[in-house]
């Protein structure tokens, strides 16, 4: 079966800025691709090309087999777009927003009303549905924005940094909704700056840097290349740091790093596999009292560092050569 989203050699420049410098990607039907990258990496440009808002300079993109340049209407029938902007109308109620968008997604009047009501229920928006959107909280607006992209039941969903600016609770909730959609067969491409988001949601991750895909794989593969998590232990008695470092020595991949002034010891551990529990157990056995233990999640920075440290794919070194500070 051909992929639902296909991107072949896509280039796009704005003046002298190469937003996309030859991107190849595909997304199988019913899967989630997380497109990971910094601001300016080209994520939004790619989403805009798939959404038929911008034309590529070179290369081609197809959704459901339809070309975004030559068959834009067919593509628009297949996609839902939601983004960082929460593009809903402030002056209108949530319901009015959805009904009008439903009409523009080729639903009849009655179907638009029914689908809007169904989506409002699904997204737990029935309560505020008849209030003007300007009275909504940020999280509520974003949820409405996502709902708005789904009134026409699109089989493909393009989400541009959907969780930017959301509080952790709203973020979790959005994640659940995205997962539900994928489970019901929707193909999703979502962009994010957060490794944990891509890791939690996506079946596959592509790392975009300076308009190039510098890595591509399952989240687990990507994490394997990341190396170790860091467990930061804050000691109840800073004087214990020497003993703590000794106790953690066998667990840590490199010698634990001690910050005597702050009273912390940082150990590098293999991710997962009960690493945190092991740290706590070792310190407990050594009778060292803890004030705090945190696991530092790998970040997008760490991904880049890991990718530069790794032996090339050529694209990787090329993508990172001009890396901004």
């Amino acid at each position: 079966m051909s992929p639902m989203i296909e991107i072949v050699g896509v280039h796009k420049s704005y003046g002298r800025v190469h937003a996309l410098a030859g991107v190849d990607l595909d997304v199988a039907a019913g899967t989630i691709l997380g497109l990971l990258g910094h601001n300016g990496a080209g994520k939004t440009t790619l989403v805009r090309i798939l959404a038929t808002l911008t034309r590529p300079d070179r290369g081609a993109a197809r959704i459901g087999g339809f070309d975004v340049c030559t068959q834009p209407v067919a593509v628009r029938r297949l996609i839902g777009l939601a983004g960082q902007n929460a593009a809903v109308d402030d002056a209108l109620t949530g319901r009015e927003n959805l009904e009008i968008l439903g009409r523009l997604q080729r639903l009849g009047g009655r179907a638009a009303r029914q689908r809007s009501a169904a989506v409002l229920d699904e997204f737990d928006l029935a309560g505020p549905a008849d209030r003007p959107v300007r009275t909504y909280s940020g999280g509520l607006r974003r949820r409405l924005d996502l709902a708005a992209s789904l009134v026409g039941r699109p089989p493909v969903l393009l989400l541009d940094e959907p969780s930017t600016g959301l509080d952790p609770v709203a973020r979790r909730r959005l994640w659940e909704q995205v997962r539900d959609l994928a489970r019901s067969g929707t193909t999703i491409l979502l962009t994010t700056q957060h490794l944990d988001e891509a890791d939690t949601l996506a079946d596959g991750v592509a790392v975009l840097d300076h308009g190039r895909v510098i890595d591509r794989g399952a989240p687990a593969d990507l994490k394997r290349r990341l190396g170790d998590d860091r467990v930061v232990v804050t000691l109840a008695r800073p004087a214990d740091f020497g003993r703590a470092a000794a106790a953690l020595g066998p667990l840590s991949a490199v010698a634990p790093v001690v910050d005597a002034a702050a009273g912390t010891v940082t150990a590098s551990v293999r991710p997962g596999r009960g690493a945190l529990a092991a740290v706590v157990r070792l310190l407990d056995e050594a009778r060292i009292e803890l004030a705090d233990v945190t696991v530092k999640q790998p970040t997008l920075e760490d991904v880049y560092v890991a990718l530069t440290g790794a032996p090339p794919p050529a694209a990787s070194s090329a993508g990172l050569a001009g890396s901004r500070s």
Partner: protein
Amino acid sequence: MTAVGLAHPNRLPASAFVTDPLAVARRQLLRLARTPQTAIAALTSPVLFLTLFRYVFGGAIPVPGMSYVDYVVPAMLVQNLIFLGFTSAAGLAQDAGSGILDRLRSLPTPRSSLLAGRAVADLLVQLAAMAITVDTGLVIGFRFHAGPGSIAAGLALLVVIGLTLFTVFAAIGLATRNPETVQSLTPPFFLFLFVSSGFIPVATLPGWLQAFARNQPVSIFTDTVRALLDGPAAAHVLDHSAGQYTLICLAWCTGIAAVAGAAALRSYRRL
């Protein structure tokens, strides 16, 4: 809804070219109803300005051979279109800046829906402002001095002028994408509005200004409407017959709409 299973997935049904602009127009009118301060300001300003010009400035501006209120009502009708145009441009700029237009452009709706729908909504607001202006005028002494055919032609021409100005303000809104920038563009429009035959007889201006004031489009719009609504009462303050003015006016409208319309469409595609 999927494209799979449609005979021509890349085509839109003909009905979309009617239903979708109407859906957009409905949105605009709902927005207007929800932000009544905008609607009230737009619809009361003709009452305010007309009363002001009739009773405050009018007394100091003699127009030979006709009452000032008859002279100024056509100018007020044209002024409305410009004032409402700024509201429209600011709204469009806001939509363009906020991502709402991106969303609309990603939907399987004709690309013309958005602009056509806004034009319909703007037209209805313009008609309301026109009715309010004429009614206010009638209360404070304005009278039609032309035949019914001529009056109907004058009002129809106001609709044409309104649609022409819509293309100008759509181009401004889409090019700036920022309501504040739109507001900053008012001074040149005030120049066209006031250095015109709208509020004073052009003959009172210094000679070097007269050529501009007589021939610039806002003067042509006003004098055309004036010729058609005031009929013989205004003939002696006008340079041409009603028929000639109508032709000149339509020529201006065609030219302006062609240039501004193309600019608006270009900005819309490139958003």
